[in-house]
């Protein structure tokens, strides 16, 4: 089922949580709402679910207006960050709940409910836990129950509010892979909220990046990562280095170096360079070679993280090399090297809010 969000605005008192949000989600898509806390992503999700009402705007499911439909009539599956399992019910009863509370006319028979619940518990690999209570399960198990419970009612749309936020790193990684497989199997339109950019990039078909109640960019993970529309998105998706300076005739002057930036407007600007987009050399070969002192070397994992201090303006840069590059260079702490940005994106300063 497709979702269309039209001009949605939401206030909490005088605070504007959402400003004129427009978003279209195609049927069967898995979309991530990504943003820092306070960006309005959870509010938007709750408005889609009907748990909250927008002041303005419309919510359409399959082009039918659902704006004024009560949450219980929307047939959405909602997964909460802290699971929200019914603590007084067994796992079986939790999953069966949505079917049991249906009006008699459309309620499945007892055996049909039992069969459905058993199937779902098998799917989430918790069939042996059906008589336990939520408090007897681990966080990851509880969230799987919550998912099974949401899927039991065969929802039009699956909404997940920071579903893995309360879990430890390893379980989180497992569960998000599992969510992706589950989504591919059920093919239910899904929207999940996260503040973890890695999680969003890893799981979603499309990522919606939100900030201060507005959508900053919508696109596939590759699009938003490789072509960030503005400094916020650039900064939010992974570590980035800033080169503040002035652009004049296609050159960005920063410190005592000049970086070649064709097609850039003149004026106060900031260049953005991702940590892995640097070349480290022993000699100054170009006008954009920045003399720097190696301050720290972190060699854990396949990527080596190097912190250098620019000698001209004494500002730190964060650089990532592969282990192979690092081994070839034989870098040592305290050494003076020349750092050259491989790829640099310039944004004129008036729109840089960071």
């Amino acid at each position, binding site marked *: 089922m497709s979702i269309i969000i039209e001009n949605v605005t939401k206030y909490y008192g005088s605070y504007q949580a959402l400003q004129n949000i427009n978003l279209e989600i195609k049927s069967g898509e898995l979309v991530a709402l990504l943003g820092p806390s306070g960006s309005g992503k959870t509010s938007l999700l709750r408005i889609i679910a009907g748990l909250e009402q927008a002041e303005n705007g419309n919510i359409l499911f399959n082009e039918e207006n659902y704006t004024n439909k009560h949450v219980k009539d929307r047939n959405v599956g909602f997964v909460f960050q802290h699971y929200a399992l019914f603590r007084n019910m067994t796992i079986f009863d939790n999953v069966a709940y*949505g079917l049991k509370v249906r009006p008699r006319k459309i309620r499945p028979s007892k055996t049909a409910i039992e069969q459905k619940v058993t199937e779902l518990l098998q799917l989430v690999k918790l069939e042996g836990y059906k008589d336990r209570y939520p408090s007897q399960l681990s966080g990851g198990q509880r969230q799987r129950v919550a998912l099974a419970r949401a899927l039991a009612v065969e929802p039009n749309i699956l909404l997940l509010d920071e579903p893995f936020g309360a879990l430890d790193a390893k379980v989180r990684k497992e569960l998000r892979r599992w969510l992706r497989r589950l989504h591919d199997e059920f093919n239910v339109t899904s929207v999940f909220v996260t503040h973890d950019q890695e999680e969003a990039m890893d799981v979603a078909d499309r990522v919606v990046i939100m900030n201060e109640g507005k959508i900053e960019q919508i696109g596939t993970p590759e699009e938003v990562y490789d072509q960030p529309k503005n400094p916020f998105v650039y900064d939010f998706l992974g570590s980035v280095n800033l080169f503040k300076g002035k652009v004049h005739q296609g050159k960005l002057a920063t410190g005592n170096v000049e970086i070649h930036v064709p097609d850039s407007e003149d004026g106060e600007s900031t260049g953005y360079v991702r940590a892995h987009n640097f070349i480290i050399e022993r000699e100054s070969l170009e006008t954009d070679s920045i003399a720097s002192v190696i301050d720290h070397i972190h060699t854990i994992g396949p990527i080596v993280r190097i912190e250098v201090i620019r000698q001209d303006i004494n500002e730190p840069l964060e650089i990532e090399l592969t282990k192979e590059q690092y081994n070839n260079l034989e870098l040592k702490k305290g050494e003076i090297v020349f750092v050259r940005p491989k790829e640099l994106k310039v944004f004129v300063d008036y729109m840089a809010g960071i």
Partner: protein
Amino acid sequence: MLANHNSVAAETNKPVILTRNATKEPKSIQWILISIVLLFLTLFLVVPLIAIFVKAFEKGADAYFAAIAHPDSMSAIKLTLIVVLITLPLNAIFGVVAAWTITKYEFKGKNFLITLIDLPFSVSPVIAGLIFVLLFGLHGALGPLLQNYDIKVIFSIPGIVIASIFITFPFIARELIPLMQSQGTSEEEASLTLGAGGFKTFWYVTLPNIKWGLLYGVILCNARTIGEFGAVSVVSGHIRGMTNTMPLHIEILYNEYQFSAAFAVASLMSIFAIITLVIKIFIEWKTDFKSSKVS
């Protein structure tokens, strides 16, 4: 060695003991503190309780049962039970509604509402009784109106019920508000998203989560309703066999020097109180059991 062995045993059975070690006093201080508490309780609780029963049976079991079976006593017991039967359900409903309103909705003046709910705790019961006399009495604000329709509130059962409700309504709400606050609203939200309506959500999700707290509040409310003297005394008019509740009846008997009879009825009230306590202990044990299962 021994200490080591103990801590290992504690680890396998009850790890809690390990964390308590730091706050554990020496044995001697423990005994002194326990003795003080026991002595105090004996002097101020056990001895008077025994005294009630001794005094009640002073003239023998026959006199005891005769005193209780006396029509005036029976009428007082019956009236007390009627008041309890009306007060408890009304206050239970009010308590749940008030707690629900305060914990599940956001609105202005919430703190003021909570303060209002506490009002009966801070107002002297006698004054509470007087308020109702001034309101419903013959010369009160609503007196003439009620008289027109021939409705008697003061010096009759409705007045006693109203006064009892006023005195005891904070108990259940006070018990439920912190409980429901700690539980939050996400289970209710989950229920709604799964297609359950408001009533089903309350019945299957909210009520089971608060049932022990609710019962605990009802027990406290019940104990206070049975024992309420001040407010009821002002509005009842002390009409024998008509508007005397048990505490009022005891006072009358006592003032007439019928000590055995007075203590006989008092012993009956004490038995009610003890039964209440036993139920309360059971509920506490039950909720403890539940919460330990949750943690």
